[in-house]
């Protein structure tokens, strides 16, 4: 067997050399590590859209590669290192679990710039970028409270990490700003991408009587279930309107393209510096898909809410807010600081679920 492989290798070595030799030396090679497949039409899909936008905008100056469905943990380190060794000078690692592997590989390759999404560890050559998705969730909450007849929405969560809990709480507060008695039921899929489980969760929520579904998982399955059951739903990460033309109210669209272009340009012109950004509607990282399948007054209210958040006039986490257990979290007029937001591990009052701890 070994001989066979070696023979094959010798015979084909030239062919593969020709393939690798084709890379021009002056192009910036940009690598991406994806947690899911680009065809998830959610989280990874949007990162891949950002990559394509970058290719389009910078043309010949960049060349991109991605590794898909890289498990978090021991495998991530190897995948990132492989990209670094293959000559990539800018590497985006697009899931929280890649944080420590990214930092480890970055120590070995000081001349490679790393950008880690949604984490908190930075280094000389490691930046962190994160998005205030929760701002969009607040707008969704406002819409849900206006649209729901029963006053209960279903929420499909992935993992009970701060990013997801932020979303649930912001959704709840947005809804309560319209209807103080609004309730949210949560089901945890314990996966970012598992269409089967997500669909089951959606069905279970509909059977429990919710008439609006929102999701923090990456497949389009919940949207499709909502469409079958003739209720309304919100998309996640990308515009999922074609999976529910009469179902989707709006969707939070993660708009990574401008950030990716900016960072690649910075590497090319030598101005790249490590930073830690947490940006939202104002900076254009969080975009809302068109408001559809709702009356004009709801649409108007949603647009107004969005504008207020974008201008900074409205901060979703502003008191008075009580925690789920009835204790005070934010006093009237008080706003949560970023550190509290980034480590959120409690529900606000009104969430009908026990947060897995």
């Amino acid at each position, binding site marked *: 067997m070994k001989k066979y492989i070696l023979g094959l290798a010798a015979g084909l070595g030239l062919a593969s050399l020709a393939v690798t030799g084709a890379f021009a030396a002056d192009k910036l090679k940009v690598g991406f590590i994806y947690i899911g497949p680009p065809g998830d039409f959610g989280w990874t899909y949007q990162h891949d859209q950002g990559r394509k936008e970058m290719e389009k905008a910078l043309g010949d100056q960049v060349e991109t590669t991605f590794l898909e469905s890289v498990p978090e943990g*021991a495998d991530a380190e190897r995948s990132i290192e492989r990209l670094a060794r293959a000559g990539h000078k800018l590497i985006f690692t697009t899931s929280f679990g890649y944080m420590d592997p990214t930092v480890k590989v970055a120590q070995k390759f000081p001349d490679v710039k790393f950008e880690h999404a949604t984490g908190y560890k930075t280094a000389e050559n490691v930046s962190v970028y994160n998005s205030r998705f929760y701002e969009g969730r607040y707008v969704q909450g406002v819409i849900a409270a206006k649209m729901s007849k029963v006053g209960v929405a279903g929420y499909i969560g992935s993992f009970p990490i701060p990013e997801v809990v932020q979303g649930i709480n912001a959704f709840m507060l947005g809804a309560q700003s319209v209807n103080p008695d609004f309730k949210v039921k949560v089901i945890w899929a314990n996966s970012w991408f598992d269409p089967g489980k997500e669909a089951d969760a959606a069905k279970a929520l509909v059977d429990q009587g919710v008439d609006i579904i929102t999701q923090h998982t990456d497949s389009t399955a919940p949207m499709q279930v909502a469409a079958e059951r003739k209720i309304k739903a919100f998309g996640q990460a990308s515009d999922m309107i074609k999976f529910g033309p009469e179902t989707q109210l709006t969707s939070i669209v993660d708009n990574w393209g401008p950030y990716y272009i900016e960072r690649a340009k910075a590497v090319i012109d030598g101005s790249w510096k490590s930073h830690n950004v947490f940006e939202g509607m104002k900076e254009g990282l969080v975009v809302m898909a068109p408001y559809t399948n709702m009356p004009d007054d709801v649409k108007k209210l949603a647009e107004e809410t969005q504008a207020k958040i974008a201008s900074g006039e409205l901060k979703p986490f502003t008191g008075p807010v009580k925690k789920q257990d009835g204790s005070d979290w934010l006093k009237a007029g008080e706003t949560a600081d970023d550190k509290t937001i980034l480590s959120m591990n409690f529900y606000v009052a009104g969430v009908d679920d026990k947060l897995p701890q």
Partner: protein
Amino acid sequence: MMRIEIIRRPQHSALFSALSPFIALLLTLLAGAVLFAILGKNPVAALYSYFVEPLTEIWSIHELLIKAAPLILIAVGLSVCFLSNNWNIGAEGQFIAGGVAGSILPVVFPDFQGWYVLPVMLVLGMAGGMAYAAIPALLKTRFNTNEILTSLMLVYVAQLFLDWLVRGPWRNPQGYNFPETIQFNSSAILPEIWTASGRAHWGFVLALLAALLVWFMLSRMLSGYEIKVLGRSARAGRFAGFSAGRLTFFAFLISGALAGLAGISEVSGAVGQLRPSISPGYGFTAIIVAFLGRLNPLGIIAAGLVLALTYLGGEAAQISLGISEKSARIFQGMVLFFILASDTLIYYRIRIVSRSVETAAKGA
């Protein structure tokens, strides 16, 4: 009308038994080449980046050893189970149990630091895997429960238990509530073999040792003979005075210990902390490794390296050719399919019987 019959051959060819894994690998490569051609990729370049490119650099060979270590450790244990007719499908769960048990020291008592930490962790890891494997063994011997089902279902229990641990009691208090434990301190990290050239850790050496020990036991000791006799015929084994129940425990405990050792080696050597998921399915891939290695510990070393290569090759092929990572799983599946098919055809032959012939025969 016709019917397909599978008939046991009176004798099977020893030559083809030995060649079967190679035939399977060859067929896998050919099928892979066809697959790549259909995808519009140059099959030669694709196979090169899959099976050769990862071997062209030292650091990448280190990565190969990292991947192969847990596969070999688990598969060596499974070979004892499978030879003795105990179908332990739950090595993935025993791997996790070992990883969790071995992590007690660095996670709960991080202040304990010193040379003794690692040995204790490895022993606890083995004990955890053993204890977890004892459950299906007990259920099988006491209640005659099907061990395939119980061991498999216990995998999910272990996965959820680990998930609960890292989100709850063992969560890193400084970790922004993300589901992972603290990073292990340096005395709890399995060291790298040759730091200058790559990050392969001593887990691979443990795997080689385990393979040698089990090979010695199977081929040179009475217990090995007992395993094989009882595995082929429980009745004949009873006449020889061997106890099937005791052997079931023995096989499960060895297998659990090695899976547990693989778990703690992976956690301590490659990951450095506990996370909601610590295995990309090693416990299941190891089943393929065990069969590809002919249930022989020495063959398993080679088979482990081959299967490890499919993981790395999938990545290399993504970078150089843009082939989806799913192709790695397809390769693993094809290897198992072809090896089982080859084995079946070595022991059985297929006869196609047409109905008319049959009725004619009956009439006569």
